[in-house]
């Protein structure tokens, strides 16, 4: 028996989000390690934390990303948010060979499974958030 998990088909939507995020603040640069870095989303409405398991990100081995979404004003977690994640190598013009799966884990945290960085260099995590009918995003650069 062959098991297939459905993949997200959100490319047009994500493209629209990417356009909205054109004014995203300068990305955070991180050398191989995401240990809970906090980034303000493009709309300013959310604070997003990013942490990988394991740390630092292993080259060419599977890893997970844990995204936390918090209301920027109150600091309260946002479990109602929808979260989409993409990883990209801007210098190479390609991303991963995989479609990551975002799994809500409660208390405003989201586990991103199926990640694998097959090459060293500059990677870019784009985190898109839909919350209260509004979209925003954040970008974090990681260097392996």
């Amino acid at each position: 028996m062959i098991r297939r998990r459905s993949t997200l088909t959100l490319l047009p939507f994500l493209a629209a989000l990417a356009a909205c995020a054109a004014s995203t603040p300068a990305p955070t640069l991180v050398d191989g390690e995401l240990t809970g870095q906090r980034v303000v989303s493009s709309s300013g409405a959310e604070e997003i934390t990013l942490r990988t398991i394991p740390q630092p990100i292993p080259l060419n081995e599977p890893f997970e990303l844990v995204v936390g979404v918090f209301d920027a004003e109150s600091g309260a977690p946002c479990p109602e948010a929808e979260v989409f994640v993409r990883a990209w190598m801007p210098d190479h013009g390609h991303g991963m060979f995989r479609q990551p799966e975002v799994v809500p884990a409660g208390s405003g945290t989201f586990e991103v499974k199926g990640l694998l960085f097959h090459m060293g260099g500059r990677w870019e995590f784009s985190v898109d958030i839909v919350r209260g009918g509004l979209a925003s995003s954040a970008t974090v650069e990681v260097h392996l």
Partner: protein
Amino acid sequence: MRLLRLLSGVSVALAIAGCSAPPPSSANAGGASLGAAVLDDGPTTLTAVPFERSEVERILALSPLPPPPADPTNRHADDPRAAHLGQFLFFDTRFSAGGVVSCANCHDPNTGWSDGLQLGIGIDELDRHSQTLWNAAYNRWFFWDGRADSMWSQALGPLEDPREHGGNRTGFAHTIAADPELRSAYESIFGALPALEEGERFPAAARPVADDPEHPENVAWESMGEADREAVDVVFANMGKALAAFQRKIVSRHSRFDEFVEGLRESNPTKLRSLTASAQNGLKLFLGKANCHLCHQGPNFTDREFHNTRIAPLRGGDAYDAGRYEGIALVQSSPFNGTSVHSDAPTGDSETKIDYLIQTGHNWGEFKTPSLRNVAVTAPYMHQGQLAGLRDVVRHYSTFEGATPIHQHAETILVPLNLSEGEIDDLVAFLQSLTDESASPALSSAPASPALPTDEVSRFRN
């Protein structure tokens, strides 16, 4: 001061293990200790070419190559009885239409476990170059397009491809059953064969032929009961598992480059002379200006994934070969993939590997990054053998003359390196230092019998 330098070296080692190389369990085992050559602050002095500390760190991450990773999808992968049977099957031409083709036709140990040809030739000519089997056991994906996710499932494809072996799975099962020695060797490892003597249940020639339902072998296959088809599929998968157990032994790990790296760790001038000055220059280019290490990373010199290198089709025209684009769909739908009933570990990592794959336009024309170990003995190169020698390969990346046009699906990092002739010589000298064929002699011919000699079986069980 010495202590500070030592601690600094240790922290660098940790950083290397974490950031620049796979974890110790896979590719960088044994690479934790840094030698005195690394602890010196300036460039290395014992090498013919001075290497900066950052370069030494990268070099140490390239050796040693650990033994091949386990394959949980094949519980017989490291069973010497299965490997022995697999070696016998590998050289046996009975498993082909007309009895003229064996695996060794395209994977000849005398030509680097490839065939020296641009395109493989079984019963007929193929569309792609025969890949070497050297270090194939380290692969994540198999075939140029990665349409198999294990070595054992890869082995099944050529056996039934009409242009390769041209055989069929019920025919293979009958061949095993009809040879008392072969049958005994098979059943001692995998258990009893199905009741193949009942010819009405098990036709002489049957296999699924998805693209030709009227094919006589497909008609025969459809005439079989589901349980009987499944029983034949089990025999077929077991053939692949035996072949994989054998091919896992075709490993190259002790080249002159590895001795050079030992020399770096030990500050051993004799070992450091394992690489000529030209090869050391080539190594420096490999890690620096030429950026070869981006795709040819880690101790097996491959990222185990796929890239579009802009190499033009062998016989001209447009680049119609979809490569990885088709490979993704094929591996996900394969009845013998790692999540199938024939896998010995169908959940967990096998699911992760298959389920998260995504087919995008970017995959069009991508082909697997080959290992560079033993690359000097496996010419010609690229997925259609388009390039005759290593100089031609390096020159391709240096000029991209005659390359397919760059478009949004090509690697944008692939820009002409503009290497001098001397630099090309140096890179080739380094690639030649990755040769180690010492494993070949014992593996390069068929054993006298398909069964492992009794004394070796006892040793395995003890």
